[in-house]
């Protein structure tokens, strides 16, 4: 593939914010987006009138909240941003990453200079409550039990069969990420859990239990981005540069359904690494899409943090825990920070921005300079429908 992702203007993250993730029946979609956006604007020291473009990610605002279009426009209005274009991105669980990518393209190309990225979702109070939430195109399959947990349960079974990955190693992902969430006041689930708790929890799709599965919830996350021209005009001294930003759509024609590796993630990561001019060994801290515990193990391998089949051993060694060689999901991951679908892709970058600015408190990765976020959304014929990989770099101050 000859996709060129690099733009002409360097792009920087200058502000971040997010709501707590959880179940907030009193907060509307607009409230969640406005709260996150206002925090990011305050953090950046940027006024609403200075925003040139809005990019907003929501996955299911139409089916869950009966608001298919206009979420970005609504949030912009509530923040006092007038006249700016608002692009609404819908790409399953990767919607927030798509919104980030659109803003990045707008700034890298020089079309706009200052952008607000918002990811938001409201799931606890929704249309069709009580019915399973499935990916678009999988509604019938969902009714028959072919839900996302079932998919990842089959992936877990295959990984165990082929590589000898153990149930204990898979559970260790959930325990590690809960431990990280204990130090994140915005995480949805923070009380410590043990491996026995995970294995003994209510079965959902064997071998996975409730504690192997991310929750549903409500939340918003936001970033303010500028390009070099925007930074100069606003008098900002950015601390974080976007090293690589890649989005891809799946290789459906392969129809391999291997479930132990996803070609789209491997290819998208390769493009992001190429843009940033770095490799997996250069990454100091990462956020990956642990929608289910076993997914994190597969992502380690597809991102090159270890070789194929070595993901179970990697988590068991402690290398991906805080203090390890490459801490993963220091904010608690989707499993514990929570997974309000469209908000997650942006929340991952909020966590990494805090890490690169040295303000993560008890969960700070010392000396973190390069950070990677990976997200995957939807399934189709054995590959992810879409994936995103973003690499952020701290700039020497």
């Amino acid at each position, binding site marked *: 593939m000859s996709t060129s992702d690099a733009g002409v203007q360097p792009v920087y993250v200058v502000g971040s914010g997010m709501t707590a993730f959880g179940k907030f029946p009193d907060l509307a979609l607009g409230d969640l987006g406005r709260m996150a956006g206002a925090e990011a604007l305050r953090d950046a020291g940027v006024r609403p009138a200075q925003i040139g473009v809005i990019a907003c990610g929501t996955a299911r605002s139409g089916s869950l909240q009966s608001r298919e279009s206009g979420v970005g426009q609504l949030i912009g209005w509530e923040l006092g941003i007038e006249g700016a274009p608002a692009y609404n991105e819908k790409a399953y669980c990767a919607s927030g990453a798509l919104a980030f990518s659109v803003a990045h393209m707008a700034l890298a190309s020089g079309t706009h200079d200052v952008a607000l990225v918002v990811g938001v979702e409201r799931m606890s109070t929704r249309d069709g409550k009580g019915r399973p939430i499935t990916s678009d195109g999988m509604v019938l399959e969902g009714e028959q039990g072919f839900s996302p947990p079932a998919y990842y349960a089959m992936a877990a079974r295959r990984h165990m069969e082929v590589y000898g990955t153990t149930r204990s190693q898979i559970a260790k992902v959930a325990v590690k990420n809960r431990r990280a969430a204990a130090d994140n006041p915005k995480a949805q689930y923070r009380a410590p859990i043990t491996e026995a708790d995970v294995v003994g929890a209510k079965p959902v799709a064997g071998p996975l239990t409730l504690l192997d599965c991310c929750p549903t919830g409500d939340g918003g996350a936001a970033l303010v981005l500028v390009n070099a021209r925007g930074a100069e005009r606003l008098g900002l001294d950015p601390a974080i540069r976007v090293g690589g930003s890649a989005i891809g759509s799946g290789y459906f024609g392969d129809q*391999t359904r291997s479930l132990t590796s996803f070609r789209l993630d491997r290819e998208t990561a390769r493009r992001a690494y190429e843009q940033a001019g770095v490799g997996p060994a250069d990454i100091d801290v990462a956020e990956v899409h642990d929608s289910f515990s076993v997914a994190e193990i597969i992502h380690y391998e597809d991102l090159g943090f270890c070789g194929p089949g070595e993901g179970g051993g990697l988590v068991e060694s402690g290398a991906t825990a805080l203090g390890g060689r490459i801490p993963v999901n220091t904010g608690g991951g989707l499993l514990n920070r929570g997974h309000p679908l469209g908000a997650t892709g942006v929340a991952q970058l909020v966590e990494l921005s805090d890490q690169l600015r040295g303000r993560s408190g008890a969960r700070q990765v010392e000396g973190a300079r390069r950070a990677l976020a990976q997200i995957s959304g939807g399934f189709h014929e054995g590959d992810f429908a879409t994936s995103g990989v973003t690499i952020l770099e701290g700039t020497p101050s």
Partner: protein
Amino acid sequence: MNAEHPERPDEDPWDVFQEGARRGELLLRECGDCGARSWPVPWMQRCHRCLGADTRWLVAGGTGTLYTFARIHQDYHPSIADRTPYPIGIVDLAEGARTGRVGLLVEPGATLRAGSPVAAEFREAPDGSTIPWFVVR
């Protein structure tokens, strides 16, 4: 062929697959151009691999081996509520195609594991539809 849209066959492959199931036949798509055999994809008219239009139907023997599986513990649908927890899986068919997710029936004494031999069986669901199940022997 559809007169208004010559590129589009009259029938959705998934409908053809289900009609086959009602007759007790497990149908696969086979490409005349590249030879790929595939589990039919709803609304996908062409070969999944080379996108060639010369596809035909192949009646599969229905035997294969289990690639992977999971046990579903939630009641999703009235037609299968009495079976919970029930196993689902992905099967490698003898013809060389890998299925999408299918329901499994485990015979007494059989071992549910990757590599277990399986055979298709057609049973009518309470809603009147006929779906292929794969029996693990």
